[in-house]
């Protein structure tokens, strides 16, 4: 069973909120829902739309062909999306909108009658669609109450919309109701950070990383941490290093341009070994690009950020479940190995809402601050694993140091070659231990079976998962840790492959380049999408 609803209109007409409510109501009824959000970089006007993909089985992608319902808040939506509709599909729209196959709803009359603001059109129309699919009003009502925080007028408007149409196309295959999660990649990252023990989130707004700032700002009082916006990204990165040095579990977040500005500070992370977690939400690039649209073009920047060589972790979740769990792993590794963990996401994962059955984090981050600070404490003690025991300033009467210069064990500046060797060896010795640990964190996942292999990473997972269900003989190899690269696990996953196809949302196949570098495997067959739109199952299948 599969249904798809597109909701479109201008920025300011409440498209995203309507989609969220409707999607959540379906989840409440036991369906799996994937909610794609598409909006230009403006505040009022323009054309916004969401696509809700609804199924009784897990689903993590949408298509641009086959809407069952289009909810059109304006004419533009009809013009742009009518061609994508199924044959028997219908358009729900206010009277003023011109369209064939339209089920008009007299939103004007309802708004007038109830004396509610015009933006309630969205609620009226989703309620009508809800009815059309034969869904019970109560679950929608409950959802509206949750999402609009006791806005009773909205409930009334929904009731009117619900009553205005017939249950034309009730969905027969109604699945069992089950508690699930309806959550976006951004929300999952924010919650993962909180679950990791976040003390300070420091950021400067940048699409599509901003939602994490907003979610974390909203929850800061509840969970006793702080979400802080500083003057610019360079301040953010350097302040975060200071904060983490002083003992706070610290995370920063930005998008490509902001992260590019942080390169110098990331390199300082490498030298200073102050633990840090960075959330990088990619968008179409280079430069300002198409800022509210998606892309995976920053992967190699992330892996190579900053000058010089230093170990780091780059983890790329593929859906909100992973976003939650991998964020926790990012904290765990950063604070255990005193490294930089970069969580790479993108607009598609960050701003799409997925239905998740369950979460099960593999690790439990900790500050890893030693209980007793020895009187000859060495901030950069050379140890077998390369990890020096961590103390924090204020803990004991022994200075704790962090430095951007090459240094001795106490953190004093040293220019002698021997210290460069010792300390580089120390820093890179961690890689082996991290890699061993990462090997146990499923750095490479294999889904499906077959001799044909799709290789990919990050948010493309959704489209690929849904594509391989429709294909025969294909499996999907997902790389979740890009650095340290899980060479053995990857080689193992592709060893019997007859065909390997690289799928990425970028221009040049960046993961493919990294795979070549790390394994010598050159993947020639590639499905790359770089029109700033996310991959869809159909897009992939057509090109295989």
């Amino acid at each position, binding site marked *: 069973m599969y249904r798809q609803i597109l909701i479109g209109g201008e920025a300011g007409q409440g498209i995203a909120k309507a989609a969220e409510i409707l999607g959540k109501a379906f989840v409440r009824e036991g369906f799996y829902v994937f909610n794609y959000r598409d909006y230009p970089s403006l505040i009022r006007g323009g054309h916004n739309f969401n696509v809700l993909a609804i199924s009784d089985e897990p689903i993590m992608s949408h298509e641009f062909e086959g809407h069952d319902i289009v909810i059109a808040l304006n004419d533009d939506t009809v013009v742009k999306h009518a061609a994508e509709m199924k044959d028997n599909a219908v358009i729900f729209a206010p009277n003023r909108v011109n369209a064939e196959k339209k089920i008009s709803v007299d939103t004007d009359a309802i708004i007038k009658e109830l004396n509610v603001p015009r933006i309630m059109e969205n609620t009226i129309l989703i309620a009508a669609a809800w009815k059309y699919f034969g869904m019970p009003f109560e679950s929608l009502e409950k959802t509206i109450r949750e999402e609009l925080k006791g806005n009773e007028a909205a409930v009334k408007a929904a009731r009117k919309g619900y009553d205005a149409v017939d249950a034309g196309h009730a969905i027969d295959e109604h699945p069992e109701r089950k508690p699930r999660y309806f959550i976006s990649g951004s929300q999952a990252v924010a919650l993962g950070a909180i679950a990791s023990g976040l003390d300070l989130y420091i950021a400067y707004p940048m699409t599509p990383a901003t939602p994490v700032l907003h979610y974390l700002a909203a929850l800061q009082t509840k969970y006793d941490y702080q979400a802080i916006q500083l003057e610019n990204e360079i*301040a953010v990165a350097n302040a975060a290093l200071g904060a983490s040095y002083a003992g706070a579990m610290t995370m920063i977040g930005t998008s490509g341009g902001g992260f590019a500005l942080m390169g110098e500070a990331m390199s300082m992370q490498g030298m200073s070994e102050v633990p840090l977690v960075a959330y990088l939400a990619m968008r179409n690039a280079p430069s300002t690009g198409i800022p509210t649209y998606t892309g995976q073009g920053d992967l190699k920047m992330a892996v190579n950020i900053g000058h010089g060589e230093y170990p780091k972790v780059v983890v790329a979740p593929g859906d909100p479940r992973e976003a939650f769990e991998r964020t926790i792993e990012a904290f765990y590794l950063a604070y255990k190995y005193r490294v930089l963990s970069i969580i790479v996401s993108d607009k598609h994962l960050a701003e799409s809402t997925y239905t998740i059955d369950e979460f099960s984090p593999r690790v439990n981050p900790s500050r890893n601050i030693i209980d007793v600070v020895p009187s000859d404490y060495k901030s950069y003690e050379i140890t077998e694993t390369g990890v020096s025991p961590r103390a924090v300033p204020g803990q004991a009467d022994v200075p704790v140091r962090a430095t951007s210069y090459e240094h001795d064990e106490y953190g004093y500046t040293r220019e002698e070659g021997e210290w460069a060797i010792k300390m580089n060896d120390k820093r890179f010795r961690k890689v082996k231990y991290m890699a061993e640990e990462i090997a146990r964190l499923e750095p490479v996942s294999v889904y499906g079976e077959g001799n044909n292999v799709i290789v990919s990473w990050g948010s493309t997972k959704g489209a690929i998962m849904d594509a391989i269900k429709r294909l025969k003989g294909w499996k999907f190899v997902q790389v979740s840790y890009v650095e340290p690269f899980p060479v053995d696990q990857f080689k193992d996953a592709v060893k019997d492959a007859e065909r390997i196809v690289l799928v990425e949302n970028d221009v040049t196949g960046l993961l493919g380049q990294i795979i070549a570098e790390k394994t010598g495997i050159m993947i020639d067959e590639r499905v790359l999408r770089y029109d700033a739109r996310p991959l869809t199952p159909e897009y992939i299948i057509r090109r295989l």
Partner: protein
Amino acid sequence: MCAMTPNDLNTPAPITWCPGCGNFGILTASKMAIAELINEGFAQRKDFVITADIGCGAKIYDYINVNGFYGLHGRTIPPAVGIKLANPELKVIAYGGDGGLLNEGISHLIHAARYNSDITVVLHNNQVFALTTGQATATTEHGFKGKSTPLGTFEEPLNPIALTLEAGATFVAREFAYDVAHLKETLKAAIKHKGFSLVEVLQPCVSFHDTTQYFREHVYRLEEDGHDPRNFEAALKRAREWNYDLNPDAGVPTGVFYVSEDRMSYEEGWPSVRKGPFWKRKRERDWQEIVSLYGVE
């Protein structure tokens, strides 16, 4: 417990400043100020953290045996702000050069003043990029011919006193590096001040910008000239008395230009920060409860 002496704060690192460098004055005064504050019970040694950027002055990180964060050129302030947010009990002194604080990283100086972050910024103002062998900075006087400006600078020097006053700093002072006793007192007052404090130190660079003689002859003390540091307008007026050109007629005011306790500090504004050091907090958050925020039943 016996009293702490400045020398107790020495480190084994060899000091690599040029003989006669003004930075020695800043080092001595800093160690004296910290030792006295410890002896006076203001704080313990473990509570002091110094941050530094990159430059000659920044080498002070290696020379004071307290907690230290040796950051990036122009970035002594952001880590200081971060440290104070992470643990408001720490006493954070951010050392930086004029190149670092006024060229590379002036955005942080302005904003930290605006936040009223409770840190003390010590500006080693030698009016030159010294460690990179003598280029003009934002405070270099007109006509200076450095290696990158053989034609002579013609830009207007910035006035960090006036700028930070305008940006909202609540303690603003200037001292002369060789006047260690005064410098020490002002550092102590700045460290004790709750809120953002700037101590500009006129620091002759004997190798690239030797102003020793000039300052010896031209500095005068504000407190001896009837200046009221509670008066913002008067502070600004005094700030503008000297424009960083080495004008033979100028008087160069030193001492505290301005001090005010009226504004809340940045750290006080954040409820979770106010509670004290984060690192002491045991986090026993229940992830199941957390994800339930997006649960649908």
